[in-house]
């Protein structure tokens, strides 16, 4: 519990209506989309402008209050679950698109702008903002930058990191820090934006983000390749990459997921197929035609039982609806869904698909695997019921086993969901102890009181 005097101070500095203290309000900021235990904060503030945001950060530091910044609370690693007694700063009140510059192809936004709204506003000016995380309809750009969010287009277009040109953020004292620029090139100072992207609110609080925009691709072609054997599908993925073709999207869906999607949405997927690849190439019409033909040929060479190329926009929409409904379809099967995102070098996709299947059998769990095979980022999705203690233990063991396999294959714990709380204790396995120590020193120097989202990424400092 915070003292009444301190609550009055927050109200005076951030705004009377921007401070929530009722137990029932606080509880609604105790969780995000990760299946972790909720932790209720001591206070929630929702600033309506930069100045209020800066003052809220400073007040937290002055009073040694742990501070967790929250956008839409959709992340999957617990990055926005506050520590006990902490303050949650909600950024969805800072939701203005300040500038979309079509001439220089960049935009400046506040952190609470919703990803899909920004993408639509860019598109209205003939520009393309490619990062499209699954939660884009609600996720905020500030959250995307803090988590280095990915999406379906990572293979060709990269992830959020690749679009951050500059940042203005507040340090732990609420002082404004500027890094990067709205120019294509910028070689001044440390690349602090590089450090802050994916830092999950542990190093600073975003105020303004400058994002790169690119021209919209002129043409697309989508297709679905059906395979009788899952390893043929994953080998095809490796073959397409090895042939140096870069599709915009190259998605994999295993039989378990195919059946779930078909049960749910009846889009006409072949339920007998062992695996599907959903592929889209885009760019100049001539290139699209050539790439599509080469991809089709590679699919056939590697044993695709059939290939369906979308003939028009409606068919293309249908292809991606099937993919987008994968998570919904799986979510309907059991109460708890654990969505992992261990990622491997693309040539190791066949081995990883096999490993996930083996792990599912070993721990007697239902695992549907789908995801961004083209960039090595699969989503093994474990379906369970958290209330079943014995099964939940097996889930935790299976997650550890998936991580071990991904690392053994030269991969990473997380392609796009971040470390958060969920993966913090595994990080050392990936990086070694020196990296953790190095990161803790940076954190200690920039945040001596350890108030900026403590416990995330590098766990508790010793």
């Amino acid at each position, binding site marked *: 519990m915070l003292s009444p005097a301190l609550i009055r101070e927050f109200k005076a500095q951030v705004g009377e209506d921007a401070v929530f203290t009722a137990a029932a309000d606080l509880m609604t900021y*105790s969780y995000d989309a990760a299946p972790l235990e909720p932790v209720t904060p001591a206070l929630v503030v929702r600033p309506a402008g930069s100045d209020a945001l800066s003052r809220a950060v400073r007040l937290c530091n002055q009073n040694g209050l742990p501070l967790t910044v929250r956008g839409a609370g959709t992340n999957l690693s617990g990055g926005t679950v506050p520590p006990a007694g902490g303050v949650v700063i*909600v950024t969805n009140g800072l939701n203005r698109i300040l500038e979309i510059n079509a001439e220089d192809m960049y935009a400046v936004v506040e952190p609470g702008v919703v990803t899909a709204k920004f993408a639509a506003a860019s598109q209205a000016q003939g520009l393309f903002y490619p990062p499209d995380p699954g939660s884009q309809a609600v996720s905020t750009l500030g959250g995307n930058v803090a988590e280095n969010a990915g999406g379906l287009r990572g293979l060709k277009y990269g992830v959020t990191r690749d679009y951050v040109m500059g940042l203005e953020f507040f340090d732990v004292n609420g002082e404004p820090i500027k890094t990067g620029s709205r120019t294509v090139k910028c070689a001044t100072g440390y690349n602090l934006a590089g450090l802050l992207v994916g830092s999950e609110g542990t190093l600073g609080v975003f105020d303004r983000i400058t994002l790169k925009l690119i021209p919209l691709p002129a043409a697309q072609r989508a297709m679905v390749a059906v395979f009788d054997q899952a390893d043929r599908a994953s080998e095809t993925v490796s073959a397409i990459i090895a042939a140096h073709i870069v599709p915009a999207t190259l998605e994999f869906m295993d039989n378990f997921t195919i059946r779930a999607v078909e049960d749910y949405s009846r889009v006409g997927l072949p339920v007998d197929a062992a695996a599907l690849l959903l592929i889209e190439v885009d760019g100049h019409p001539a290139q699209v035609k050539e790439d599509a033909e080469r991809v089709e040929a590679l699919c056939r060479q590697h044993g695709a039982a059939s290939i369906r190329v979308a003939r028009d926009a409606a068919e293309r929409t249908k292809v991606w609806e099937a993919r987008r409904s994968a998570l919904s379809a799986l979510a309907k099967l059991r109460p708890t869904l654990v969505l992992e995102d261990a990622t491997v070098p693309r040539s190791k996709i066949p081995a990883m698909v096999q490993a996930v299947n083996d792990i599912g059998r070993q721990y007697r769990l239902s695992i549907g695997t789908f995801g961004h095979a083209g960039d090595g980022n699969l989503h093994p999705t474990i379906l369970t019921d958290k209330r079943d203690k014995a099964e939940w233990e097996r889930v935790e063991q299976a997650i550890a086993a998936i991580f071990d396999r991904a690392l053994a294959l030269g991969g990473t714990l997380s392609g796009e969901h971040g470390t958060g709380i969920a993966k913090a204790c595994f990080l050392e396995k990936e990086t070694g102890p020196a990296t953790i120590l190095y990161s803790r020193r940076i954190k200690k120097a920039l945040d001596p009181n350890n108030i900026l989202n403590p416990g995330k990424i590098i766990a508790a400092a010793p």
Partner: protein
Amino acid sequence: MADIRKLRRLMRQLEEQLVVCMRCGMCQAVCPVFAQTGREADVARGKLVLLDGLMQEMLDDPEGVRDRLQRCLLCGSCAANCPSGVNVLEIFLKARAILAGYLGLPPLKRAVFRRLLAHPETLDRVVEFGAVFQKLFARPVNEIVGTSCARFGSPLLADRHFRTLAAVPLHRRRPALNTPAGAAGLRVGFFVGCLIDKLFPNVAEAALRVLEHHGVGVFLPEGQGCCGIPAISSGDTQTFNDLVRRNLEKFDSAGFDLLVTCCATCTSTIKKIWPSLCDDDLAARARSLAARTMDISQFLVKRVKVGGPAAAAANGRVITFHDSCHLKKSLGVYAEPRDLIRANPVYTLKEMAACDDCCGMGGSFNFEHYGLSARIGRLKRDSIAATGCAVVATGCPACMLQISDMLSRAGDRIAVRHPVEIYAESFSAEGRKG
């Protein structure tokens, strides 16, 4: 106040429905209240967490939970967009009932529900009394929309522009009907609903004209009650069950093919809420009637085969259509009312942007949170006005009220009609003044 452990036991009934929410937060994309406030307690995910907290003994504030649970339009946008298929409306209504049982109903609501709503004859007398004297406190403001405003300050009416009570409600004009099936070979039960009876009897008259025109027999019994939605949405299960029982007795032994209503809210209440929330002894009858209940436009298009390829004028009077949440999101009916409108060649249908965004009415939400309701309604008004239409149609009288208020307050000269009125105009000369 009852024992809080008892409250927790009751909340446990919701557990299997509550665990379905995986906290993905996709409901934030579509919730009209959240779009205005950005507060997590206003969106379904936040409310489900609060119910979970109450059940798991992590939260000890039933009043706080009830107050936040009431800040919901029950529009069902979240449920329609939910990846996990959480049955949000049923959970919220059950939780409201459990909390009202535990905390008691607020005295005013209790009086209104138990003394008026539960007794249709008393309600009718009070409303008729009101209709006679409303001129004393209401002054007409917009003759196209048909709205009035308060002559002097009134906490109940605030600065609303409201539709006044009909001088002669439907139950005076047509107390009862019992006609045999005609050319269509069909006979319907006609459930009127409070708003249609007392504010928009012209809608029912239009529907009855249309049914007669197509040779559909009508069974319209005297003494129908409210569908019960105001009571159950405040958690008053007693009044709700009294009304369900009364209405079942009026209808379920009579011979007709389908029960139709002109009110999207009544239809969705009868179809979805009666069977899932009524007392066990009524459930079988409620299920059976629910299976035979249909929105009027759906009935006319699907069963009477009204509509078809109409020769709509390209330069007709511009009309736009608002999808009521209870019609589209709850019942999946959106093509049929448009077919009905297109069947009148005088009009040209022009879709508004975000035609299925909630208008912000939400029944008692409008009374409890008028400021918020009006902010949401204003967005709807802007979408309507941007079409440049002369008429806006919608299949729900509650939406008609809200849209009338919003248009009138903005000074728009746009008539608010029901699709069945528009269709009825096409063959009834006296309806053409619009």
